[in-house]
């Protein structure tokens, strides 16, 4: 068979590429088949060649490696031949993914190579190891000792490779850091500069990942390197490392200042100089409290400004100068402000990278005084390169003209308009500048409104949501701007059919349109002409817009209509009458198409509005002109309640006031930041307490108890208050308590029986009392929408009936002799579980309690029956709970059997027992 080398493969690919795509694909497929054969074959050299070719193809094409590729790579890695092994290690990062078994296979081979006496061998695994280690914690764990061993290898080439491997190793095996840290530290003083450089790099990465704290102790060594080394790369690294360390240890600053200022003044390498400046800035060395800090800041800013000014010079320097200036702004804004002109010029740079940096810098430079000019400049960037008549806003054309005056107008504008992402960023930054810190820098809000409108008009990117938010926010907060805003929006936006059309493409315009519609609806008193506003809001092309805009428009139209009719009533006349009639008709015709709109929200609003309009229309049409002052409302059937009250009505149809109160009864004001925190929590309101213990579901015993005891306390405190939820709580509570008492009153063994008896023994008074309570409770529950027991409570003796039935079924299934035979007794037996508690839960719990203790002798079988029972009818939430309680009781009682004597007095007993019970619980927990 002819064997293709990598070179042949590449040649073939290039030859076939020239011909056609199909030929290339065919060639590729053929090559893949060959490669698969080679990989499977026995010949190691061929296999290695196959691996190499596969890697090459994987770089070029999105082809997955053939199955078992990783195994072949492992084989090649284990070849004794240097050149084959190297190919194997080269391919390893591409072949392995995640902690697969192939990695396990490699461990021994890698170990052997690492420890090879041959100097050329260890570097091979070390090149591939970073990737493998970061992928496989187990490998990192296994190889960690070997790497530490290599740190003292005689060859510096191997030492530095081993140092670099420590970073990924410790990343996936963090325990190793503790053991190896001192060894790494030793490498900082290695006699070979390459090893030191590698070590500094590793420390740098570690400090970045962990924060610098752990690496402060290395400061002396690093300081030594800073003052002693002449390798720029290493110096840069050390200087950058100090930028991480100094914020943690301010004393370092004083120590570092001399060498760093020395470097700044002496070095010829701009990269190093720049990093020194940057470290001064980032590392907090420019503290204005210190005299030398101010001087240093001046030096730094001047250096950066020099880079920035250097027109014919290096673009890279301008870029990094902008980059660094952003960092210096927080401490020394006034120094940077001196370069405002250069920064603004950079905004016009043909290079997007520089523009991006300049944009960021400008954003942080904005203050009250320069805001207008900066925003205008940004607007100029957004403006389309050809400012045609389509620009409706004076501000925008002004801005565009200003942009035209800048040095590189055409290139800038054109390249800008090419990238929508940049435009989006620009628009967002613009909005961000305005909104920054709740408009603290804004000099004039009318200007803000017009800028926002301009942005929407010219941005052509999707910033609609942002514009809408900020516009509504501004209008809501600033009363004085409302009139202006409504006027402008009414004029420029709502009536602009072309703009409406553009908005349908999902760009920024739609947001502005929504905001405009909402604002005009919300503040109709500032409209110059409500009638024309309504007609432009309900524009004939409205049905093409987005559903949210349509529903907003319907709502706004209704608001304006309401306002207008209310206004009209003040000067009601025959003219008004016909005018209003026409208005109603036109609004109706505008709204009616949306009755069958596909969006449900639109549909609903349209239907509601239309009904109201129908009513108004009927009212107006039957209204007799004002001279006669006859009540015109009486013909409207069905709505007489509100309108027929007085006999002598006003001179206008009352339905004119139908709409307005719907929208204006509450004014919405902006809520201050942190306003919620100021609100005092009312006395007795505990926000952390659960309304229904356990969230309505069964819970673990321990939790249940906590709830219980809390609630109990509260019962004592709060008595009857708290509403339905509380009622529920209290009920459950008492029920438990009662049960508790029952159980405790008896000797534990006999509790079940006690219940039975209790049911039977129920006295006449008790029953009466029960009925009374039930009635009272029903009355209470009637108003409670959350009350679920209503229906059952209607039936007189429901307490017993359903349960008995269920019980029977259940018992039949469970074949428990005792319960089966006594099913008639069961009836009496069961009520104590959920129902009884509910019915009997008293305000005066004590009376019930006092009646209980006597029924003390119970049988355990009864308890068992209750359990079953509850389990079988867990459909209602209350039973769920009960089930839980029974369970709990079960445990308690067993516990109590030993250590609890019979109670002495009723009420005290409850408390005592509760305590004991909980301690008992704890014991159980401890034991288990």
């Amino acid at each position, binding site marked *: 068979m002819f064997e293709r080398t990598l070179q042949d493969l590449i040649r073939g690919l*290039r030859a076939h590429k020239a011909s056609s795509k199909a030929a290339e694909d065919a060639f590729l497929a053929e090559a893949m088949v060959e490669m698969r054969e080679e990989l499977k074959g026995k010949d190691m050299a061929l296999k290695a060649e196959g691996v190499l070719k596969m890697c090459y193809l994987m770089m070029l094409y999105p082809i997955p490696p053939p199955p078992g590729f990783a195994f072949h790579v492992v084989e090649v890695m284990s070849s004794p031949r240097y050149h084959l092994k*190297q190919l194997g290690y080269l391919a390893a990062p591409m072949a392995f993914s995640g902690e697969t078994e192939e990695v396990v296979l490699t461990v021994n081979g890698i170990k052997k190579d690492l420890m090879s006496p041959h100097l050329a061998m260890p570097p091979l695994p070390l090149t591939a190891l970073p990737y493998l280690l970061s992928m496989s914690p187990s490998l990192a764990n296994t190889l960690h000792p070997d790497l530490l061993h290599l740190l003292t290898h005689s060859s510096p080439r191997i030492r530095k490779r081993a140092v670099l491997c420590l970073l990924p190793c410790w990343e996936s095996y963090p325990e190793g850091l503790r053991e190896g840290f001192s060894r790494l530290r030793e490498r900082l003083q290695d006699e070979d500069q390459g090893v030191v450089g590698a070590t500094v790099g590793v420390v740098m990465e570690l400090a*970045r990942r962990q924060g610098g704290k752990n690496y402060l102790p290395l400061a002396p060594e690093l300081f030594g390197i800073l003052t002693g080394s002449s390798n720029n790369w290493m110096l840069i690294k050390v200087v950058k490392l100090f930028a991480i360390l100094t914020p943690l240890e301010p004393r370092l600053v004083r120590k570092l200042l001399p060498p760093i200022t020395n470097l700044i003044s002496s070095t010829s390498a701009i*990269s190093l100089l720049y990093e020194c400046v940057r470290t001064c800035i980032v590392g907090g060395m420019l503290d204005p409290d210190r005299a030398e800090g101010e001087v240093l800041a001046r030096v730094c800013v001047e250096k950066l400004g020099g880079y920035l000014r250097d027109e014919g010079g290096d*673009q890279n320097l301008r870029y990094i100068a902008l980059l660094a200036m952003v960092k210096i702004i927080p401490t020394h804004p006034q120094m940077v402000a001196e370069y405002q002109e250069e920064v603004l010029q950079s905004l016009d740079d043909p290079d997007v*990278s520089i523009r991006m940096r300049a944009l960021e810098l400008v954003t942080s430079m904005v203050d009250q005084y320069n805001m207008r000019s900066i925003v205008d400049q940004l607007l100029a960037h957004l403006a389309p390169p050809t400012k045609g008549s389509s620009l409706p806003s004076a501000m925008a054309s002004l801005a565009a003209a200003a942009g035209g005056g800048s040095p590189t107008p055409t290139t800038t504008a054109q390249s800008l308009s090419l990238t929508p*992402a940049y435009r989006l960023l620009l628009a967002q930054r613009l909005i961000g500048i305005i909104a920054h810190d709740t408009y603290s820098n804004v000099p004039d809000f009318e200007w803000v409104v017009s800028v926002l409108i301009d942005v929407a008009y010219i941005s052509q990117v999707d910033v609609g949501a942002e514009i809408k938010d900020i516009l509504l926010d501004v209008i809501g907060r600033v009363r004085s701007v409302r009139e202006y805003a409504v006027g402008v929006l009414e004029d420029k936006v709502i009536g602009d059919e072309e703009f409406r059309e553009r908005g349908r493409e999902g760009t920024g315009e739609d947001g502005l349109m929504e905001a405009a519609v909402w604002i005009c609806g919300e503040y109709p008193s500032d409209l110059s002409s409500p009638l024309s506003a309504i007609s432009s809001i309900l524009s004939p092309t409205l049905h093409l817009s987005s559903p949210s805009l349509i529903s907003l428009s319907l709502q706004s139209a209704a608001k304006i209509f309401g306002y207008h009719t209310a206004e009209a009533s003040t000067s009601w006349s025959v003219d008004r009458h016909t005018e209003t009639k026409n208005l109603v008709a036109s609004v109706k015709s505008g709204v009616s198409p949306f009755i069958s709109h596909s969006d449900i929200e639109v549909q609903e609003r349209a239907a509601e509005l239309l009904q109201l309009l129908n009513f108004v229309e009927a009212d107006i049409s039957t209204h007799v002109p004002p001279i006669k002052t006859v009540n015109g409302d009486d013909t409207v059937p069905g709505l007489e309640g509100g309108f027929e009250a007085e006999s002598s009505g006003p001179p206008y149809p009352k339905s004119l006031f139908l709409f307005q109160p719907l929208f204006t009864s509450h004014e919405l004001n902006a809520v201050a930041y942190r306003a919620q925190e100021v609100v005092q929590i009312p006395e007795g309101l505990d926000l952390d307490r659960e309304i229904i213990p356990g969230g309505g579901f069964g819970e673990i015993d321990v939790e249940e108890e906590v709830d219980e005891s809390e609630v109990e306390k509260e019962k004592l405190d709060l008595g009857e208050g708290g509403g339905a939820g509380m009622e529920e709580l209290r009920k459950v509570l008492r029920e438990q308590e009662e049960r508790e008492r029952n159980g405790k009153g008896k000797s534990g063994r006999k509790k079940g029986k006690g219940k039975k008896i209790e049911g039977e023994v129920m006295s006449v008074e008790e029953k009466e009392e029960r009925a009374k309570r039930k009635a009272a409770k029903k009355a209470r529950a009637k108003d409670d929408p959350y009350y679920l027991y209503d229906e059952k409570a209607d039936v007189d003796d429901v307490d017993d009936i359903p349960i008995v039935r269920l019980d029977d079924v259940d018992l039949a299934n469970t074949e428990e002799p005792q319960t089966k035979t006594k099913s008639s007794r069961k009836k009496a037996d069961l009520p104590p579980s959920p129902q009884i508690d509910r019915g009997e839960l008293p305000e005066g719990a004590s009376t019930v309690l006092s009646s209980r203790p006597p029924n003390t002798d119970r049988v355990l079988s009864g308890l068992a029956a209750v359990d079953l029972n509850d389990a079988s009818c867990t459909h209602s939430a209350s039973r769920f709970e009960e089930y839980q309680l029974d369970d709990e009781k079960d445990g308690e009682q067993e516990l109590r059997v030993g250590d609890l004597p019979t109670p002495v007095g009723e009420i005290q007993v409850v408390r005592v027992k509760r305590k004991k019970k909980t301690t008992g619980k704890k014991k159980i927990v401890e034991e288990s």
Partner: protein
Amino acid sequence: MIQAVLIFNTHGKPRLSKFYTQSPPLMQQSLIAQIFSLISDRPAGVCNFLDAPDLVFPSSAGKGKEVRGDDDDIRVIYRHYATLYFVFVVDGAESELGILDLIQVFVESLDRAFENVCELDLIFHFDEVHHVLSEIIQGGLVLETNINEISACVQASARNRKASAASSNPLLPSMLTAPGAGRSGSRGGSADGPRRWLAAMGV
């Protein structure tokens, strides 16, 4: 650290791609395509830092290990040589200008390894480029910046490869020794070969 080293030509064809962070191959290719389309749009004479709003790093979404969230300062730094772009994707631990110098070092090392390197060298010696790179960067961290040291290492490695390949060349030794081994006593066999040949000629 350095996240990736890429070389592609002015048509966007990758000549070398080495990712030091784990990311799926498809993401790597989409990143290359993205960077290429952005870089190729940039006019001459602009700065060497690629900073574009529509540049997203698929790798940063994919792994979450390196990305710490606080600074998204992943930078693309590139240099343009003849028909090739050399692109380094780095994070904030690297000095921007330092990386520019490093790219220069890489190119010079390639130049020494190939003697007047051109794109064809990189195409046909895909593996060799990787070997050179592995002498400069290991696992995303800079191993060596001294060109002399780098090329010494590259040469040593190349010598080792040559020696190893020569000793194990499947053609030369096996073709020659295998028939000899077939005939028992290759030494004697080869020695009397000519004699037999002469005998066959009737001498």
